[in-house]
């Protein structure tokens, strides 16, 4: 019987011939934590007598969720993380460098074939780079850093084959929202997801990051994409090698197989307060918005900013709407500036906040008021997610739909602009 990517990566990291369902202890290549999860991890590491990470490419800490610091309380948490990183010589991505799931890939510490854990649920994002990468709690990540290895249950795999071309102004976000709507919020719990087919084969890396990022929104553990020329050149352009690419065998066992036709996907929106309440954008015509948010580890990359800027093209943000933009990293921000994208968005009326998580988790930089409606490129729309639980509705959509809605002042199909 052939093997899936998850089976092969976990077998290679545990010197075993493991198959789905087995428990293995596997060496971990890299681990990370962010400012909301680091202090608990640090306490566990100190309890263990930790000195240096035993993971192959070490670990990194990222100040992104609550940065720049909005309060005295948070400043003390950041200080604790800085002190720990400094005393152990652990790389620290400081305030303003960007969202962990953009700065970690940009740092070259995750490569094809890797096994990676992070104290952030969206660590599955690195699946775009052909890694088996997953989010865990702080204790698990502490254990991985301390021991250089961790226990894993080898997951079953779902195969999702996507074929056909996405229409103009329909993008990777619409595709993954459509899939989550179909599979539901727990439809892939504990599973590894492998995408295949001409749609994802021809998709640029930014789109693959978007799709892998949201795999956890249907409960998935890993979402390894295939390593191809796009993966290799994305890494090479940043000065990194292409690791040890892994692909599944022709006769690999998939617990379930899905076929999706991308050509009939229209712009999708996830309605409050659940990521799997997905509908066509046309069903929401006339829904007034007060805030629009472009950014996050899902959709704050260069191509996302470019897509929004193209739609703006001389138009302005509606006077009743605040359009907040948080580029996913400083590198992305600089590239967007050099390409004139920032100027276009600013001239349209956008508000730029520091590269990082922006208002996604509701601690700063754009908390909506009571009864307001937000359209966002983020990955979660739980009640209270953006910091206010008083009748705030968050609609999740693509950068194109967010830009179109910011222009119109109501949820709008980007194909109608």
């Amino acid at each position, binding site marked *: 019987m052939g093997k899936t990517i998850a089976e092969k990566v976990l077998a290679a990291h545990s010197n075993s011939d493991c198959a789905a369902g087995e428990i293995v202890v596997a060496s971990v290549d890299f681990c990370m934590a962010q400012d909301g999860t680091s202090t608990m991890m640090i306490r566990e590491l100190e309890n263990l007598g930790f000195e240096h990470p035993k993971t192959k490419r070490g670990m990194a800490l990222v100040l992104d969720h609550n940065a720049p610091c909005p309060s005295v*309380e948070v400043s003390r948490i950041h200080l604790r993380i800085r002190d720990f990183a400094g005393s152990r010589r652990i790389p620290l991505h400081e305030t303003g460098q960007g969202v962990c799931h953009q700065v970690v890939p940009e740092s070259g510490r995750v490569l094809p074939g890797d096994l990676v854990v992070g104290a952030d649920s969206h660590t599955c994002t690195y699946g775009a780079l052909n890694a088996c990468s997953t989010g865990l709690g702080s204790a*698990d990540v502490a254990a991985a850093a301390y021991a250089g290895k961790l226990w894993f249950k080898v997951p079953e795999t779902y195969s999702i084959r996507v074929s056909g071309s996405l229409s103009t102004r329909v993008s990777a976000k619409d595709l993954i929202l459509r899939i989550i709507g179909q599979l539901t919020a727990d439809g892939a719990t504990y599973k590894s997801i492998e995408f295949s087919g001409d749609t994802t084969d021809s998709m640029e890396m930014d789109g693959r990051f978007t799709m892998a990022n949201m795999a956890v929104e249907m409960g998935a553990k890993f979402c390894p994409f295939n390593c191809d020329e796009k993966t290799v050149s994305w890494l090479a352009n940043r000065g990194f090698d292409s690791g040890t690419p892994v692909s599944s065998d022709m006769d690999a066992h998939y617990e379930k197989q899905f076929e999706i036709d991308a050509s009939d996907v229209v712009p999708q929106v996830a309605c409050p307060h659940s990521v799997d309440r997905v509908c066509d954008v046309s069903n929401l015509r006339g829904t007034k918005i007060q805030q629009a948010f472009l950014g996050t580890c899902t959709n704050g990359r260069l191509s996302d900013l470019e897509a929004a800027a193209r739609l703006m093209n001389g138009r302005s943000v509606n006077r009743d709407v605040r359009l907040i933009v948080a580029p996913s990293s400083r590198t992305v921000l600089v590239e967007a500036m050099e390409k004139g994208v920032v100027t276009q968005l600013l001239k349209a009326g956008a508000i730029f906040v520091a590269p990082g998580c922006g208002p996604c988790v509701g*601690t700063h930089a754009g908390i909506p008021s009571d009864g307001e409606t937000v359209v966002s490129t983020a990955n979660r729309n739980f009640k209270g997610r953006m910091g206010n639980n008083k009748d705030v509705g968050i609609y999740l959509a693509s950068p194109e739909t967010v830009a179109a809605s910011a222009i119109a002042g109501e949820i709008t199909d980007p194909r109608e602009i």
Partner: protein
Amino acid sequence: MRYSGCARRFVPNDDINTDYIISGRYKFKIDDINELAKHVMEDIDPGFASKVRNGDLIVAGRNFGCGSSREQAPRALKAAGVSVVLAKSFARIFYRSSFNIGLPLIECDTDSIRQNDQIVVDLDSGTFTNTTTGETMHINPLPRTMQILLEDGGLVPHLKKHGDFALK
């Protein structure tokens, strides 16, 4: 191991995410778990933290603990006095984290349990008793890995005790 207490249910029943268990409004700025416990479940049940009693059980439907990886979620539940969570299914990260910090989770059919029913769970005999309704139910034993973690008091105590993973 035996747990007994009052059943606490919520609306919604399914997909109770970790933002609902402990909101980002608090978890990013409060590092003291006992302080965080004062806000547990606040977004879906304001005042829950003052109602919950030591030993109470949380009872839910599908996909409990989905969303963010925040370990503050199981830690805050435990610090608030919750002894065990019963649900039809759990999200993956929350499942591991709960056992890692010593909060047992049990997957079982929870439909018949009503708000404030008195529940006794006996993990050793694999039984669940609703003393309010008189119903007794068999519960599946915990996976061996999770039993070991629970017996050792969590993942870090396990590593300190054995010097390595000893989970088989």
